[in-house]
């Protein structure tokens, strides 16, 4: 177990920056998730930590020791691959034993350690199977056991759940999180799935175009997104585009709202569907809208509301007894608490 520090980590391929000046400090026992769209540099960052990509600039420290120039096999990291990468010609037990053998652990110690690791992921009874004889979820757990058995300094997870079906994904993410907390191991996970990231992380890192855009807890990212990009990427947002002038926000569609933000000019307002209040009658601060689409999602209902010819917002209402369930074509009245406004020019500009 150890902390992990990335300092000014940059990887250039010719003119292209895969990552640019990434600074991160992962505390001992922390579960950090790198979140971003594909091509944002999150996987390159993980591969630099594991040693498969040589950084162009910057340094990597694990447990205080500089490992930037060490080859992968001399860093003590445990990596769980997206496709699991289990050795097909070895049994489950042999797969898990591999890391111990490489570390010169005496033969007599390997058996019990492998058994412990497999018990940890509830696969102790399948030690003699080959990977191809197992389901995707079981293979995933073997990969986890193989990465944990030699007590790595850092556990690295590269989209570990993306090959599982939705139901299993829900279960496995809780299992991985619980295991990581129980062992108190430092972990870095890469994912493009925000729900996964929000469920599992102690702290999240949002990346795009090779750069870190925001670091913080779920609550930080949800309540105080640093930029329009983060507001759109973490949680759902509806955006209203328009212009701020003289304390008013006017959209292209003619909607006019009060706006007391310290900014002027073209702007975008980000609204969270879960924060909208929908009522049949006008109420203070409410705007009328026509229901364009009703999407029933179990206990919750998404309403697509047309506020003006060009302004569309999504509001989520709960489907409890007694709550208002509008029909297609109804006119409802929607309001929202103070929302963040961002300058329209740059998706990474700070909001107010």
């Amino acid at each position, binding site marked *: 177990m150890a902390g992990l520090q990335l300092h000014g980590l940059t990887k250039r391929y010719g003119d292209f920056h895969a990552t640019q000046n990434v600074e991160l400090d992962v505390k001992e026992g922390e579960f950090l998730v790198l979140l971003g769209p594909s091509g944002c540099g999150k996987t390159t960052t993980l591969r630099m930590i*594991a*040693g*498969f990509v040589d950084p162009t600039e910057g340094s990597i420290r694990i447990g205080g020791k500089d490992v930037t120039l060490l*080859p*992968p*096999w001399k860093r003590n*990291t*445990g*990596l769980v*691959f997206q*496709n699991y*990468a*289990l*050795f*097909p*010609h070895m049994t489950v037990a042999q797969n898990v034993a*591999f*890391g111990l053998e*490489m*570390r010169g652990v005496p033969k007599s110690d390997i058996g019990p350690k492998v058994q412990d690791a497999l018990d940890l992921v509830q696969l102790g009874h399948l030690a003699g199977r080959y990977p191809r004889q197992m389901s995707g979820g079981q293979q995933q757990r073997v990969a986890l056991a*193989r*990465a944990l058995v*030699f007590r790595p300094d850092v556990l690295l997870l590269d989209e570990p759940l993306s090959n599982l079906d939705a139901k299993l994904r829900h279960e496995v993410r809780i299992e991985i999180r619980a295991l990581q907390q129980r062992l108190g191991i430092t972990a870095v996970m890469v994912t493009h799935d925000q729900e996964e990231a929000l469920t599992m992380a102690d702290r999240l890192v949002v990346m795009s175009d090779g750069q870190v855009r925001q670091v913080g807890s779920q609550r930080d990212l949800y309540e105080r997104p640093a930029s329009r990009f983060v507001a759109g990427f973490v949680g759902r947002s509806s955006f209203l585009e328009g212009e701020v002038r003289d304390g008013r926000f006017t959209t292209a569609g003619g909607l006019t709202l009060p706006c007391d933000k310290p900014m002027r000019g073209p702007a975008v307002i980000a609204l969270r569907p879960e924060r909208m209040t929908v009522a049949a009658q006008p109420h203070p601060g409410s705007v009328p809208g026509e229901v364009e689409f009703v999407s029933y999602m179990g206990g919750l209902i998404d309403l697509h509301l047309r506020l003006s010819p060009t302004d569309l917002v999504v509001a989520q209402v709960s489907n409890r007894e007694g709550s208002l369930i509008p029909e297609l074509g109804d006119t409802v009245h929607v309001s929202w608490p103070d929302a963040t406004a961002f300058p329209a020019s740059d998706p990474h500009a700070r909001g107010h």
Partner: protein
Amino acid sequence: MTALSRRHLGRWTLNAAAMLSFLYLSIPLIFVTWLSFYRQEIPSYPPEGYSLRWYSAAIANERFIDAFATSAKVGILATIIGLAVALPAALALNRYRFFGHAALGNLLLMPLIVPGIVLGFALYVFQVETEIATGLPIMGSFGGLVFGHVLLVIPWTVRLILASLAGFDRTLEEAAMNLGAGRLTTFRRVTMPSILPGIVAGALFGFVSSFGNLEMSLFLVAPGETTLPIAILQYLQWRIDPTIAAISVLQILIIAVALLVTDRFVKLSRVV
């Protein structure tokens, strides 16, 4: 005609075609086997009776035994040398793009494409010119023959190793390195076991194509030393009797057994 019976008609037509090609391919094998058990010397119809005498004759013939030994020796040596060149070459072709990459890929098809007699003649010219230029005794030497046969082995081995490398997931190598294995250990413990099917199949096909080669050997063997195909050709110029049929059946049997044994360990249909 209902949809169902129409569907069955199509199925029967296609299966009949498959059976026809099956028959087409097996007919020569059936007839040569039949002939090898004839009692009489002249291939006539119907046979006068059956015996194993031509098998005894084939096995007792010292020229055939010697030629068989020579062919086996040449084949084994050529396969070993061919593998030693082909394995790193296939790895390079699979992993790196370099100058001449595409050319090498096409060149690999060469021994399958260039008529054997052209290839044999070209090799003969090369060896003659090298002998004249260097004064070394290359022509008709055992080394010269093996050198030529390596040319037959390389394309098979490189192509089949390449085919199994194409199905090899390189993240397995990264997994091994992440678990603490250096480059050589990774190759030995992870890469090698995964591409073994291609290596075995390549060696087998390389050996067989060396063993059965006539055209190239025609140009390269010394007058005294002959390979099995040449011994058969020489025998046939002198007389035609079922001895050759027996020899042929024996060869086919040996090759078939080698194929079946290999197939048990390595699914040939996956790589060939």
